[in-house]
């Protein structure tokens, strides 16, 4: 019997390891429901546990009709590589589903992890003040690898602004202005109130889409199922 004790211990630890892995997997893939409507003005407090969802910057950057049956809301960081990978997928979804889906983008720059995240978010928001948010948004994601490793990104972002035909004096002023800072702050506040911990985080009609469902082939199925459910 004594000879069997080590094997029993090993089996017990193996069982505990498998059980803990299963528990971790289950808890990390839980879809978190979010209450809608989300126009509450209550303060978000410190980042951390999800609280009553607060409104982000208004007007929000929305691609697609507000009446679309599938409303996607992305919290993204322009310097985050997975967000860069998600960008063409969302573009593709817009092409495939047309007016059946609407995509809202919320700024969620991860500081200090990404040193240029704030500058990139500010450039997108400053372009947004001149009606070119989505154009700048696309340029930032499409060229992420170009500016990501650059020490001074300002000239690059100003180059994009010029390329988009923006009023450069206004752009330079807006990038460091209060209006832009306020929008980024409000989007971040909304993200924290929804329990966003990383990017990209996508909500679909108020429910968080599990990260592993974000590849195109899976997201397509998720959207199709949501459309079937909304009929």
């Amino acid at each position, binding site marked *: 019997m004594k000879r069997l*004790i080590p094997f029993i211990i090993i089996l017990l630890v193996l069982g505990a390891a498998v059980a803990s892995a299963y528990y971790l997997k289950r808890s990390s893939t839980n879809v978190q429901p979010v209450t809608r409507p989300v126009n509450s003005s209550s303060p978000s407090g410190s980042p951390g546990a999800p609280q009553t969802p607060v409104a982000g910057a208004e007007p929000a950057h929305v691609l697609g009709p507000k009446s679309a049956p599938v409303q996607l809301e992305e919290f993204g960081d322009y310097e985050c590589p997975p967000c860069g990978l998600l960008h063409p997928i969302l573009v593709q979804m817009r092409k495939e589903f047309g007016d059946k889906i609407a995509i809202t983008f919320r700024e969620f720059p*991860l500081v200090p992890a990404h040193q240029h995240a704030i500058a990139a978010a500010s450039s997108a928001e400053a372009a947004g003040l001149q009606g070119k948010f989505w154009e700048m948004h696309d340029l930032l994601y499409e060229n992420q690898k170009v500016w990501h490793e650059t020490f001074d990104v300002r000239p690059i972002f100003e180059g994009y602004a010029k390329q988009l035909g923006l009023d450069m004096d206004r752009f330079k002023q807006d990038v460091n202005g209060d209006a832009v800072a306020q929008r980024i702050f409000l989007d971040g506040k909304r993200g924290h109130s929804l329990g966003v911990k990383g990017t990209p985080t996508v909500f679909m009609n108020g429910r968080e889409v599990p*990260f592993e469902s974000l590849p195109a082939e899976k997201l397509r199925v998720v959207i199709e199922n949501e459309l079937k459910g909304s009929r």
Partner: protein
Amino acid sequence: MISGSSSPAAKRQKLLHILIVLFSLCGLADSIYLTVEHITGQSVRCTIVAGCSEVLSSSYAVVGGYPLASIGALAYFTVFSLAILALFGYRIAGTLLLPLVLAMCLVSLYLIYLQAFVIHAFCQFCLFSAATTFMLTVLMLALWKTRVPS
């Protein structure tokens, strides 16, 4: 238990084996967490803590189609099993421990090199795993030094 001997060397060996068991459990827990994060895709997401997403989404995080962390979990579990068997007097298990831990130490050094000079980012969970492996190596070398001649 080890040879049933109560000599100081045997007692030290027993203590070292118990420490190896405990450290291998720490490594096992860390690598299980990383494996689950990898499988669910969480590790690839960017978070406020820099480094992990860069390291765990790199091509070096997968070996032969399997998450590197899962191979780590297997290695730590093997170390745990061998240490438990050695603790209960299975001498062959003790003999197998040293090459396994040394191999894990070399792999950890290589992974730290990758983080520092290739990926240019550090993941705290990977560093914890490396620290655990280094501790296991120190314990194994101490065990080797205090081995009881058969």
